[in-house]
């Protein structure tokens, strides 16, 4: 690990200003992903700004019935919050499907959104990776790509986003609230927060350098049947091969988002019109432009089958 200086920030604005002032500075909250990557020298911050002392650990009910989730609310606390379990069960389910109890106790709402990919070539510093070393190439393309993206990838990168929580946030139309280093606050719709790799896969989000996430806002509850199905290589504590987040109303209409298939949570609003027609029609619409590799072509079928299971479960719950 490279050495670094360390400070505890007092306010969100101070933290953002410090990040802008010191080149190579990074925020640290839970640290479960950042420290992992620092040990491998994939991340090499020269200064860490510990944001754990900022009072961003509350879940507030908003006047419009929505919820503002502080950036530092731990995954365990968000999944267990009574209002989340009752009004946004999709979010609880997605959080509980991810990581381990120990990690969820540390991991934060903002940090979860900012997780780096678990692509094995990103982690292996002996291999080419445009995300880790821009311009060096992509070892996953033509490599072992069973875990990789089937849609939205580019010639530069076919990595997936590892988060379960973000998939639920995408289906729930969350908004990411931030403060920039100049003190200006802004709101980023979750749909625009994560980027596709294009020719700059090292730029993963819409955040500007030094910009700090302060909260994630959820609109008022949309009701319906909410389910999160995650298919993985073992029953617990593994990243998704494919995951499906479903919100379905009594008339069969609804929303669906996928995890494990793309560089960001995958939702195609126009594909949701196919939901009342079943899993095949919906999967076909969601993955119309899929370009799987021979290793991960099975994911396309797996999405359809997982959708079939989720829709069957949803139907059972609605009748």
């Amino acid at each position, binding site marked *: *690990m490279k*050495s670094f200086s360390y400070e505890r920030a007092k306010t969100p604005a101070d933290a953002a200003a410090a990040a802008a002032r010191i080149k190579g500075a990074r925020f640290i909250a839970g640290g479960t992903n950042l420290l992992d990557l620092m*040990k491998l020298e994939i991340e090499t911050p020269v200064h860490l700004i510990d944001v754990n002392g900022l009072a961003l650990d509350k879940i507030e009910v908003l006047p419009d019935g929505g919820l503002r989730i502080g950036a530092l609310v731990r995954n365990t606390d968000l999944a*267990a919050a009574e209002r989340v379990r009752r009004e946004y069960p999709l979010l609880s389910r997605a959080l509980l499907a991810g990581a381990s*109890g120990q990690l969820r106790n*540390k991991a934060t709402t903002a940090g979860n959104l900012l997780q780096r990919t678990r692509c094995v070539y990103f982690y292996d510093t002996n291999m080419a990776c445009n995300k880790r070393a821009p311009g060096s190439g992509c070892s996953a393309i033509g490599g072992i790509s069973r875990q990789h993206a089937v849609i939205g990838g580019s010639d530069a990168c076919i990595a997936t986003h590892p988060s379960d929580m973000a998939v639920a946030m995408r289906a729930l139309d969350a908004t990411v609230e931030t403060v920039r280093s100049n003190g200006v606050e802004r709101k980023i719709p979750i749909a625009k927060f994560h980027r596709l790799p294009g020719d700059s896969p090292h730029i993963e989000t819409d955040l500007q350098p030094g910009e700090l996430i302060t909260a994630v806002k959820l609109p008022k509850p949309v009701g319906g049947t909410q389910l999160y199905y995650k298919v993985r290589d073992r029953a*617990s504590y593994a990243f998704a091969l494919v995951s499906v987040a479903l919100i379905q109303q009594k008339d069969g209409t609804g929303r669906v988002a996928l995890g494990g298939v793309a560089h960001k949570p995958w939702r195609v609003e126009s594909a949701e019109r196919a939901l009342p027609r079943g899993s095949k029609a919906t999967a076909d619409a969601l993955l119309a432009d899929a370009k799987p590799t021979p290793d991960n072509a099975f994911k396309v079928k797996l999405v359809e089958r997982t959708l079939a299971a989720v829709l069957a479960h949803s139907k059972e719950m609605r009748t």
Partner: protein
Amino acid sequence: MQDSEDINRRELLIAGAVTAAATALPLASNAQDSGTSAPVIAKVTLEVNGKSASLALDTRTTLLDALRDHLHLNGTKKGCDHGQCGACTVIADGRRINSCLTLAVMHDGGKVTTIEGLGTPDKMHPMQTAFVKHDGFQCGYCTPGQICSAVAVLNEIKAGIPSHVSADLLAPPRVTNAELRERMSGNICRCGAYSNIAEAIAEVAGSAA
């Protein structure tokens, strides 16, 4: 006889470790120095197992390395050092965490309970007693992490925190075998003592799992 064998084995391991450290990482090996940057030292005060300790640590020092290499509490184990195995699990400010994936400096002013703080050979924690009774281990390397995790799991269930296998998010979670296995999935046991571990935890919880 048992004692002398233990000491011999331990001395051998220490000698081996010193040799490796002397050849590979002569400086600050416990701060995971890559050898290319000057260390930054920070003052850190931790309350570990009820005792306060003040340390001057390289900022890179993980909580795990602070416990093992600076406070000589070797009960907490380093397995993967990347949060995948759970051998380093401790209870920090009331919650189980992977001590390998957090910096000691981030816990300045905080409280930590390690396996040594849960019980002693003369006065074992009920979870330790249950692990012995049910043979919840074979080599024992993952055991301190398993026991710290297990103690915290029962508190999490008591606090009403749901899990991936809880059928009803709005009902209080129950101590079932499926719940215990899911909640303990962050603790790997390569000897495969899982079924006995689940039985030990279930006994402490007062239920048959």
